[in-house]
């Protein structure tokens, strides 16, 4: 059984946006090549305005700043990114 990596994607998922689907697929491609399993979850930016939601970011092994501005909440997105930066969570912003 492959190890499972949990990724939190900071962004407002829109199934009509090709690059949002590409984000999910790219994680699966890379995980398979590394013999890992990936469990990803999109985190709506509005929810990240809430301090208790920010605390929940600790459950992930890495965070991703999704493309697709403007975010529903720029403040929520920035709070999530700040968590990754200040707490030392692996982060990619694309």
């Amino acid at each position, binding site marked *: 059984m492959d190890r499972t990596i949990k990724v939190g994607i900071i962004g407002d998922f829109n199934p009509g946006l090709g690059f949002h689907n*590409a984000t999910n697929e790219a994680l699966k491609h890379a995980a398979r090549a*590394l013999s890992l399993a990936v469990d990803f979850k999109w985190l709506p930016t509005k929810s990240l305005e809430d301090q208790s939601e920010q605390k929940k970011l600790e459950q992930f*092994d*890495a965070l991703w700043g999704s493309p697709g501005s403007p975010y529903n909440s720029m403040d929520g997105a920035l709070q999530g990114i700040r968590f990754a930066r200040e707490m030392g969570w692996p982060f990619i912003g694309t």
Partner: protein
Amino acid sequence: MLGIRDAEHEESAPGGSTLFISKLACSLVGKTQEIKITPDSIAHRAYGKREAMEQFFCNYGLNPVFRNEVTKGKLSITGVDPEGEVRIVELSDHPFYVATLFLPQVASRPEGPHPLMLAYLKAAAAFQARRNG
């Protein structure tokens, strides 16, 4: 993180006093550019080479006025386009913190995952292993 308290994005706050992220001189939507990568950076270790072709889907980027401000903090510019415009930044005192103006995920294929995605998930696996002791 740079102490620019009123930093704004031109798309969401076009009248902001400090437009840290501004509209690009020409849109990059649908364009492919060659990126030059700084040696010994996270990006360089990920790609294993000094240049890469990448696809863009954006109309906004770092306002060139703030370029020097960016590198005064802990962020380093580690990827630029042929004109020297900022395309990749990363944090040096962090396990893995990379931001790109292009979309690496779009170039990923089942048989050819993107090198930055591989490096990112490797960093996540190492982080998980450290946390689990």
